């Protein structure tokens, strides 16, 4: 497998509405071949003379190395602003500049162990290809998909194919178990004897999942969603405090050192701040 990201002119192969989301398939030669579960792509939005300069990052839902049209990457997006609205408004064959695959993917267990995959909203997107990989390695896979309401769930049908067991939660109880993913997670971890929890979704959910995993002595692999400008490691905007192997807390870039982090290494309570003791933190008053 070739290492390193590519920058390619992608082409829209399909774009479909799925609940509150949009499922975008891009022909992006070379990118799919290099993509592993948990990696992401950064898309330029608005065309060559766009007034929106910052790339939008999306975790890869599926990557298919070969097809009639060449390698494709699929992603799921929610319209949050003008950039994602532009993407959701593409037509078949439109060009989209793609950089990817980016970031460190999910780490896979060496042993054949039970794994629990937790997705919040469209954060479930990268979990299906992960589930395939885990099953190929002989791991059993159990999924928990949660959202505030039913239309914000993604992939509940596909989950039944990808996993041995599936639990769906909605906060309003419109489908599945009423409540949050972490309401059902402790019992699931106990029942399956899970060795690893993989999670992708909003920060609050990741923080809660990491805490449950910690209580159960289970490894957690969390894919974070921090706002990024470049996605490739040069802008230093997507940082969060993470404790390293040496015990030192550093502000690390979620694009190149993540987006997947060990849940026990992220200082979840301090995200959005520079906690005291962080390497290079201001010691006295806030000098520039």
């Amino acid at each position, binding site marked *: 497998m070739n290492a390193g990201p590519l920058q390619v002119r992608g082409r829209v192969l399909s774009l479909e509405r799925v609940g509150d989301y949009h499922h975008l398939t891009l022909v992006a030669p070379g990118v799919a071949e290099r993509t592993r579960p948990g990696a992401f792509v950064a898309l330029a939005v608005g065309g060559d003379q766009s007034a929106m300069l910052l790339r939008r990052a999306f975790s890869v839902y599926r990557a298919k190395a070969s097809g009639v049209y060449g390698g494709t990457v699929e992603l799921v997006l929610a319209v949050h602003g003008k950039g994602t609205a532009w993407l959701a408004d593409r037509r078949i064959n439109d060009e989209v500049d793609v950089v990817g695959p980016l970031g460190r993917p999910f780490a896979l267990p060496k042993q054949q162990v039970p794994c629990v995959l937790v997705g919040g909203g469209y954060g479930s997107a990268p979990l299906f290809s992960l589930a395939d990989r885990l099953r190929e390695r002989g791991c059993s896979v159990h999924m928990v998909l949660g959202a505030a309401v039913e239309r914000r769930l993604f992939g509940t049908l596909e989950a039944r194919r990808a996993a041995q067991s599936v639990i769906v939660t909605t906060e309003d109880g419109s489908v599945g178990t009423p409540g949050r993913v972490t309401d059902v997670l402790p019992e699931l971890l106990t029942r399956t004897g899970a060795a690893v929890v993989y999670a992708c979704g909003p920060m609050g959910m990741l923080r809660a999942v990491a805490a449950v995993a910690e209580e159960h002595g289970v490894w957690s692999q969390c894919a974070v969603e921090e*706002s990024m400008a470049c996605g490739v490691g040069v*802008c230093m905007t997507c940082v969060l405090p993470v404790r390293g192997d040496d015990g030192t807390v550093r502000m690390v870039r979620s694009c190149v050192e993540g987006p997947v982090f060990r849940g026990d290494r992220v200082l979840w309570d301090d995200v959005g701040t520079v906690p005291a003791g962080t390497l290079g933190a201001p010691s006295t008053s806030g000098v520039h």
Partner: protein
Amino acid sequence: MAVTSETSLDDVVVDLAVDLAGVRLPTPVMTASGCAAAGRELAPFLDVAAIGAVVTKSVMLDPRSGRATPRMVETPSGMLNSIGLQGPGIDSFLATDLPWLVSRGARAVVSIAGGSLGEYAELGRRVGASPGVAAVEVNISCPNVEDRGLVFACDPFQAGRAVSAVRRGVPRGVPVLAKLSPDVTDLVPVAEAVLEAGADGLTVINTTLGLAIDTDTLRPALGGTTGGLSGPAIRPLAVRCVWQVHQAMPDVPIIGVGGVRTGRDALEFLLAGASAVQVGTVVFHDPSAPHRVAEELRAELAARGFSSPADVVGLAHRPPAPGGAHG
């Protein structure tokens, strides 16, 4: 440089190489400090040895965590950033980042930032003693802890002192470039002061201060409240600054920076008086931009019958020729 109708413009062979304060660059297009880290992350997208130079993110004496997030807000044709000079510190930079750039054959322009004159002097010595440095760029848009936190770049006297502190530690053959802030009433006295202090060239301009308010939280959008505005939104401001400085001191090498997105934009800066340009925020949009912009500039020059970037530096300052056409 008049182009006659018989000349086939396609035949013009453009050599993009330029001399910048005694340093030969294969193209006049380099990265801008803070927009390319130390070059390594851009290696998948361009050949770091083939672009004009890699200007590294401003490094300070000690490791720095930078500011809290959010550190960035997208604005029309630009962005605000408040990174807070996150970086590994000079020891780590000289041990890992600089050797990588040098081993790849890149021209490394090392940007340094200090909070005091002593820090600038120490950084100048450390970088000046390191092999393979093509030039030193002094980021003087930092608060001076010894002067009530006032930014060096906003006071000609303090700006000159910072540059002088660096210059003393840097060998004669290694140019020192001073990066100027546009957030002053008159840029020329600051330019004069840093040149007097030993700067060999000027990088014009740094970001300009801005602020965005999140209308959902009803609070400033950036963790650091204010941030530096960059991108094509500030290009006319940057071109104006280059114009004014070149007009006042036509022989001083200027590196134009601020919103360069295309070869046409690079040409605009050269016409205003820059000898080279830096591509900053646009790298976030297009990581191959420093290479692409150089090739577009080659085409822009060829289309106008110019064979070298040096032929157009400051050309816009000449009075309009009777009859109209350039030349």
